[in-house]
């Protein structure tokens, strides 16, 4: 290895990220994934709307409402889950 390669090894030595990086990553990973509109829903909605008319539209609205409720439950329950973990950690 010549002088330049030695200098490159030195210049490109690994660095540490800021303190708390791994903790932030672990926290973010535990966050419930907020799923954006599932693709199957978009496709199903199109079929229902085209084929079903008014009844189809009501069905579509119901699917939308159900998905919103599921999202709300995931967020609320996810937070309660995280809070419970924290409480258990503190009580140990």
């Amino acid at each position, binding site marked *: 290895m010549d002088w330049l390669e030695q200098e490159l090894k030195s210049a490109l030595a690994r660095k540490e990220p800021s303190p708390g990086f791994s903790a932030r990553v672990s926290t973010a990973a535990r966050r419930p994934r907020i799923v954006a509109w599932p693709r199957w829903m978009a496709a199903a909605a199109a079929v229902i709307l085209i084929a079903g008319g008014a009844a189809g539209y009501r069905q579509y609205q119901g699917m939308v409402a159900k998905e919103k409720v599921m999202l709300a439950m995931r*967020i*609320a329950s996810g937070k309660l*889950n995280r*809070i419970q973990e924290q409480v258990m950690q503190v009580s140990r």
Partner: protein
Amino acid sequence: MRRFTLVAVCATALYAQQFKFNLDHLAAKASDTVDLSLNGSTLQFAAKFFSGKDPDEAKVKKLISSIEGIYIKSFEFKKDGSWSPADLDSVRNQLRAPEWSRIVGVKGGEGAENAEVYLRNEKGKVTGVAILYSEPRELTVVNIMGPIDLEQLAALSGHFGVPKVKLPK
């Protein structure tokens, strides 16, 4: 006429969350925002589309049948310092009203997670839950309205990610 007005005001109040979030100004700074307002009629409508045969969906269906509203605002940010403690103070001040009591408070300090859970009590019955959750790059406020059966909420443990919550006796 006066009675009609009074009923109308009460009916209106029932359709809104139990405290003002006052967090809309954070949406402009957030990289991701969730804003859910599900009032009683929306929840009743949605309940029809949950399967009674699927055990998990049946439990959720039963739970939301007694809930009068779910209101959630959740913001994610790219950088620390995008929200301030004052943003949550305006919510906390409202939760100092006598009908609210804090049952859980976890303080991780600056740069860590902080969380609080409040219950609303009226005439000896639970009529609401508030969850305040914050991290350096996230702020989430949840209000669940209604005569919530906390045992039913606990019974959702392990389903859809709902936690095992130990309820105060």
